[in-house]
């Protein structure tokens, strides 16, 4: 769950009274934008991306405007602009208008968790405004601190002192940056990054740090972020419709992590355990529709709901339903298999039969009982299947599933379809 930009970031920073650049949202009137330009002499027009998109500046995604015509031109250009980073493409949904903050100094500052120090850590440099990866190591300081006492003024002062930062920026930063710990520590963040913070002189000539961009990540397992009452649509683009539906079932009893791998995949693999998830997803590659981890001993009801959603989205296009996990230590195989089998039967009842080859590799408590329940269901649905115990190498079972998928592509699917539709046991006819 990520959040970028000042439109919402500004609201969060104001909660801890951290100064923020003047910002107007996409719905602002021409008069309001004119007023903003008048106040600041110049404004930035930035696209609004839901979720996390970085490095906008580099991609020409920031417009500068000194009059309303320029501002509106940038608005038109950037309102629905697309931005690609790696394999992720995001589309903007609106723009912000941000007042120019005159400054001599730009500061980078972030708080995050460090796996090196196993503590919350700040990263700071007074040579901000560029990507942090481009700042030479000796120009930035990474400082872990005790979460029990929190981020203190001296952490900032010492870091800036070591960096030999200009004297006039130290005091305002020492006064203001610790406020961000209050935000970070109380609202479920796992990252807050301000880049740049521009050091703007106030009326008295004293420098004030003003946040000119905002990036944050929330810890999905920490309900504290809900206190911010952010509208859910802000995070909507992080997740596909399918993922959102599954995420609603996210409780601590049982994992329910999913990720769409290939919307056109042909193997749907409910996977149990983080390790199996990593291994199976890697081996299935683009043939998989989703990557999932449903381990952690989910109760029957939860597994039923999850399976219903998975089947609703993916079963029709799938050649192979591939249920895979190692030898479970604690997950009750009977309960999870019963839930998946019941959901499968329901799917067939509601949508009619769909050609599938079912491949299963699993071990764990109540294994045989679970497999037998699945067997009865699959026999009933007239689907071909193979079930392997935990004494078969998981990677070999994956290879078998891949071979089945290939055969299904080469005509196996059609054979099963003909069988299912041709000799389908008609439901009892209505009689009255």
């Amino acid at each position: 769950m990520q959040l970028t930009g000042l439109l919402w970031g500004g609201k969060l920073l104001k909660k801890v009274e951290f100064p923020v650049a003047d910002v107007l949202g996409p719905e602002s009137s021409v008069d309001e934008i004119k007023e903003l330009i008048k106040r600041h002499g110049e404004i930035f027009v930035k696209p609004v991306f839901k979720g996390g998109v970085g490095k906008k500046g580099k991609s020409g995604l920031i417009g500068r405007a000194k009059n309303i015509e320029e501002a509106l031109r940038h608005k038109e250009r950037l309102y629905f602009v697309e931005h690609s980073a790696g394999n992720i493409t995001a589309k903007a949904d609106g723009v912000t208008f941000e007042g120019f903050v005159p400054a001599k100094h730009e500061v980078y500052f972030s708080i995050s968790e460090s796996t090196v120090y196993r503590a919350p850590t700040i990263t700071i440099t007074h040579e901000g405004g560029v990507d942090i990866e481009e700042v030479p190591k000796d120009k930035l300081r990474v400082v872990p601190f005790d979460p029990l006492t929190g981020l203190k003024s001296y952490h900032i002062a010492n870091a800036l002192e070591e960096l030999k930062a200009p004297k006039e920026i130290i005091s305002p930063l020492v006064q203001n940056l610790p406020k961000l710990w209050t935000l970070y520590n109380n609202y479920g963040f796992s990252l807050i990054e301000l880049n740049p913070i521009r050091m703007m002189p106030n009326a008295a000539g004293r420098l004030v740090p003003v946040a000119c961009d905002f990036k944050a990540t929330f810890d999905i397992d920490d309900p504290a972020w809900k206190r911010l009452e952010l509208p859910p649509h802000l995070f909507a683009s992080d997740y596909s419709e399918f993922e959102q539906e599954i995420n609603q079932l996210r409780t601590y009893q049982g994992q329910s992590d999913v990720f769409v791998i290939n919307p056109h995949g042909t193997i749907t693999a409910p996977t149990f355990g983080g390790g199996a998830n990593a291994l199976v997803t890697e081996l299935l590659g683009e043939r998989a529709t989703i990557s999932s981890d449903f381990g952690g001993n989910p109760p029957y009801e939860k597994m039923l709901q999850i399976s219903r959603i998975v089947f609703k989205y993916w079963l029709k296009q799938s050649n192979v339903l591939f249920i895979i996990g190692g030898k479970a230590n604690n997950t009750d195989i009977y309960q999870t298999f019963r839930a998946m089998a019941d959901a499968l039967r329901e799917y067939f009842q509601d949508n009619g039969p769909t050609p599938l080859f079912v491949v299963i590799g699993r071990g764990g408590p109540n294994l045989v009982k679970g497999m037998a329940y699945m067997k009865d269901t699959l026999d009933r649905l007239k689907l071909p299947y193979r079930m392997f115990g935990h004494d078969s190498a998981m990677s070999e079972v994956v290879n078998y599933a891949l071979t089945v998928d290939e055969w299904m592509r080469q005509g196996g699917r059609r054979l099963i379809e003909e069988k299912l539709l041709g000799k389908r046991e008609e439901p009892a006819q209505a009689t009255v």
Partner: protein
Amino acid sequence: MHKEGVKNFPYYVGIDSLEEVATKEDRVCVLNILGTESRTVTPVSHAFSGGNVVFGTSPGRSGQVLETPTGDIPVYNSVKEGLDAGHRFTTAVVYLPPAGVKDGVAEVVKFNPELKKIIIITEKIPIHDARIIRAICQTNGVDVFGGNCLGVADSWNRVRIGGALGGSRPEESLVKGSVAIYSNSGNFTTTIAVYLLTKGWGTTTSISSGKDVYIHFAPREFFHALSNDPRSKCAVIYVEPGGYYEKDLNITRPTVACVVGRWKARLTKACGHAGSLAGSGDDARAKERWFMDYFGVDDIYTPENPVFSKKGAVVTNIAHIPEALTKVMELNGIEPDFEPRGDLSLKCWFANNASIQVPRELDIQTVRAISPYGEQIEEILKQVGAQYPRQSMKDASGASMMDPTTQITKLHGVSILDAGKHSFEENLVLSVIKNYPDSYERELANTVLNGFVNSCNLPELLCADAARKEGNSPNTVLTSAISIVGRARVKDAQRIMEIIFDNFKLVVKDPAEPLDYKEIIDGLSDDDRVLFRASDGEDRVLRAMVDKVDGAGRSSVFVDFVRDVARGLPSRAALLAAVWATLAWKPLLRKDISRVTFVTLPWYSLLFSKMIACSVPAERHTEDAFCGVKDTELTGEWSFTETAFLALVGRRPTEEELFEFSLLLGLIVSNGPGTISAQGSKGAVSADGPEDPIRVQINKAFAGFLTHTGFAHGGNGYEAIEFLIERFRNTGLEDPGSAEHGLDLKKIADEYATWYGQYKTEQKAIGNIEYKKIPCVGHPVFKGKQVNYDPRERFIEEVFKERRIYNVFLDFYRTLVQSLFEARVTRNVFCVNVDAVIAVILLKMVWNTFTSGRMTEKEVENAAFTTFLFGRMVGCAAEIDDHINRGRDMDTRTPASRCTFIR
């Protein structure tokens, strides 16, 4: 600030050697010991480790115990209470929910100065809490394993602490040997151990580290402790992307590192283990490279390209670990610990090609599974009938489910809309055997259901009459009657069902196929044989039933069997059993129903018959006829739906009426387990104790259903009928089924809407918010649009159109909602809800009888209520059977803590 621990670390680490991770001396306290997961796992760990758990905590449950194979573990409200009771421990295991973990850690650290280790099993701990946990434990000198882990184990010490490493059979995977395992994945910790056995390697210490952002006992600590462990000759480490825990390690013993998750470099959010996101430079490829550098190799080890050194190898597939480790150890001159056990080739346990020709490479044949699974499979394949795990069935059902969006309930997967297209007898069969009968089976069902209707001179009928005369409502009358129909009435039929089940379960696949059952007959005791024979004296109904069964078109091995045992006319009990055995056999073999249900079927059947029978006064049951229809004719020629219609209206229905009546009954079979009638049924079962299912009284459960209906639930259908009667009483309407009725429905509706608008305004003006509402108009779910529809009503409309059925009352209702909107009584066009459909069908059925004076308004009201009881009997029978099979004793009660006292 941290406490002083092992010297090599700039932070606190207490464990210097892997020998110390899980020892025989460790004494354990389990937080939230009675939680669902701990309740299963802790007893196994405790027994495997020789009883190392000294106590557990569970606030509010002090004094309880957790039973284990090696004795009870005491439970206290808090750690302090346990310590005050004299217990001492060194290790805490945390099973608390995520929000409670931090506080649990704080508690155990504060109150136990002897604490050395904490193992956190809980998943999804907020990062915020994880950093505080680390800070607390660093300050106080405590090692932490997890969160989100499966604990630690030691095969040498035969100790498992925390989670479920090795599942319910730890001894299968925790085999003493020389390999130490460290794994980000809990499951893979033991999967790797099992894989290692195939090359003859056992284990020393196994650590499931968890894969949260905070890994408290990290690879650096592991490899330090490995170097001090005299037992561990080598190690296997399984890691996933994310975090810098594997960077700059000092690995001193041969190690195979398995790094999985290259694909995760594409992810922008966590999937699987939290924290395993690709970040800057800590993705899978980076980690592979770190390990390759440690081992001095330049590629990944695969069987085709075995790259390894004396120091180790890197693999990306756990199946390659055993081979890679063996190769590395060969270079070090170290042999495996023992002979290889098993192998990792594909071993298929269950297979079916579903009559499809699959290519040879896919057509893998089944092999006998390893012990004990092979034996279990053998046993389970012999098992006949469904078996359900028992659980609390309070407000839960495996029989019915209402979709909150469509408000359409499904019973055994059949929506009530589809149920409406089936006959009453078919729905009754569905309720108990979860499948609709085919035409032959339907005839069999009709025969036995009708065969037991006439109850002339039987006590249940007399009882019903007595109750009726005292002015009781139809449900109360029927409660009195069916309370009489106890177990003794069906004991012979149930015994015969048992005989059939026990003797035929492994030999009959299809009851239509003949079988030589001579040996079975020879094996019957004399006492049992007697049950099959009809008693002396003429029983014309029984003979008619047998004739009907014989002429139904197929033969049944069970009917033949009971006849052959009887050597002539079988008894009523035997015929009843044979018919239900025939109907239920295939569902039984398909494991749709259980043995308990199978044996109980004759009781349900008899109750179905008696519900219809006793809704009719005794005077209409004569020696040889029911409602004026000869018993032999009823048995031989009538369907049970027609009999039910006869009981209500006093005549045989026309074809159109039969269709509408079936539709009506089908629509009301169920509204899910939350309805009062279902709750009554379930409560009655729960109170008898379904864990001993044979004790549950089915007739009492029916009484539970019936007593949980009443003037507000079931009897309220009459409100709409009364409303319609008021509108149409003086209109001269003759045939409500004719569209040529000659009435101006719009005018009637407009006049009423205008009147109602004024009435509503007046009542509101005088502050009466309890003013009379128009029945069956509007719905809490189907509202808010400009024009609203109840999809169930729409469905019926379509069915009526298809069958060219007209109903003036339904037409009126549709006109009325429009008029109400036009008269500005409603904000938009309200829907006509499904209850209206029920009312209009019923009123149409009885309209002529009513207007001709042959039926009083009171009788119409009773008929409406009784119709509801007939239909709902289907759903409630299903709930009763479901609860008997799945429920626990007294599971419908509400804990006192959730009850409210109102002053």
